[in-house]
């Protein structure tokens, strides 16, 4: 099967101008290929750049060199060289991202946060909300929380909203950063099911799973992060 994502010779270093200009090399020559139905677990110690790699693929971090080729609407686009507009469109349709922490917007209720990526693709409010409700129910988020803004929710509740948001749209590529870190066994299982269903429909996933059991259940392969070169 044709790969849906190809990371080639990716390098990422950060230059901290206001701290003497020190450079931190975090990613060095990452090569990774992802096909539909695959779930690759990033493996490596803390600081080896796992989150950085996910963010670079998502366009949240710029890359220092290398390519990130994703199949978007039938054509191959290099995220590293794409325009802001293209990246926004890719995020809308092709690549979904579940971050480690929910970024809370004041006053926006949980349901709307989950529904937002569906609405961004042009769907009507009612159907987007219905799908959001379905996902939150699956993740056992109590209904009484649906219409509240998540600022005061627990870590686990916020994480479930984050996950629901990531799975609200059938992205061809999903990036998961510690999706079950704050969840109990039941909810971990729910996430596992969601991942399984996504893979079954042909999604391709890269994930960071500290939970070994989860990793064993969902990962179809592993990518080992190399140690970063010292600056």
């Amino acid at each position, binding site marked *: 099967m044709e790969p849906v994502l190809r990371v080639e010779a990716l390098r990422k270093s950060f230059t901290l101008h206001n701290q003497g200009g020190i450079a931190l090399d975090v990613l060095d020559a990452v090569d990774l290929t992802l096909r539909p139905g695959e779930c690759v677990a990033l493996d490596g110690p803390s600081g080896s750049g796992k989150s950085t790699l996910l963010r670079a693929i998502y366009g949240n*971090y710029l890359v220092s060199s290398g390519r990130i080729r994703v199949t978007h609407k039938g054509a191959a686009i290099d995220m590293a060289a794409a325009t802001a507009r293209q990246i926004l469109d890719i995020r809308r349709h092709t690549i979904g991202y579940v971050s480690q922490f929910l970024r809370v917007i004041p006053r926006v209720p949980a349901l709307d946060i989950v529904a937002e990526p569906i609405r961004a693709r*042009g769907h009507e409010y009612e159907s987007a909300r219905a799908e959001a409700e379905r996902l939150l129910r699956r993740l056992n988020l109590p209904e009484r929380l649906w219409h509240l803004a998540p600022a005061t929710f627990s870590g686990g509740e916020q994480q479930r909203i984050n996950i629901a948001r990531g799975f609200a749209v059938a992205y061809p590529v999903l990036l998961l950063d510690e999706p079950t870190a704050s969840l109990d066994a039941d909810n971990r299982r729910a996430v596992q099911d969601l991942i399984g269903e996504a893979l079954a429909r042909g999604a391709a996933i890269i994930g960071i799973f500290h939970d070994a059991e989860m990793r064993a259940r969902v990962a179809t392969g592993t990518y080992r992060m190399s140690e970063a070169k010292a600056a």
Partner: protein
Amino acid sequence: MSAPPGLDDAPLLSARGVTVTYGRRTGCRDVSFDLWPGEVLGIVGESGSGKTSLLGALSARLHPAAGSVRYRDRTGRVADVYRLTEPERRALVRTEWGVVRQNPRDGLRLNVSAGANIGEPLMAIGARHYGAIRAQAADWLERVEIAADRIDDPPAAFSGGMQQRLQIARNLVTGPRLVFMDEPTGSLDVSVQARLLDLLRRLVADLGLAAVIVTHDLAVARLLAHRLMVMQGGEVVETGLTDQVLDDPQHPYTQLLVASILQV
């Protein structure tokens, strides 16, 4: 909600080499960018960065010393804003743009009722049915979360947050495609800000508005803008996706700005 535009749409607003000077002082220099329908561009910087000069030049209020600002109107026609005649330019601002000022008192008629404030842009483009104008004003009051029974009250009696929401309603009632905002929450208390930002977010998304928002507050930029331009000393020092510029700033000045934000 309106469907997002295809990637092959032409830009809505194009700035090329925009330079604003005040005698020998430079407001902003050589600024270029494109803005597409439905996109929100944030212009961030501290005082003296040139962001207000730039906004003035973009919104047809400040004639640039060099460069061009082009706008594509509803019919698809592209116009060089400063080559239009004055009547054409005013018609453009009246029918396709909105301008939200930092201080709502600069953008409202304080001694005329809230309903008349919202109705005036409609009357200015030829609306002549009192009942219909009043109904539209009432509809917009609801959309900006102002109690319906305030429709006949003059905004001189409103709180700052209400005045700002009224200004937004006044600007959006004609269905503009592009809105310019100068520090829209600048004069408001923090708790009031949150409500206004939420409103702006929803309106921009629901109406498919394009917007250029000038702010010194990075949190406001993060919340509202798809893309950011960071300005320092009259020049654009960094530009890109909002989350990328704020999470992975490249330019020393941007890094300084981001690092300077106090955490609550």
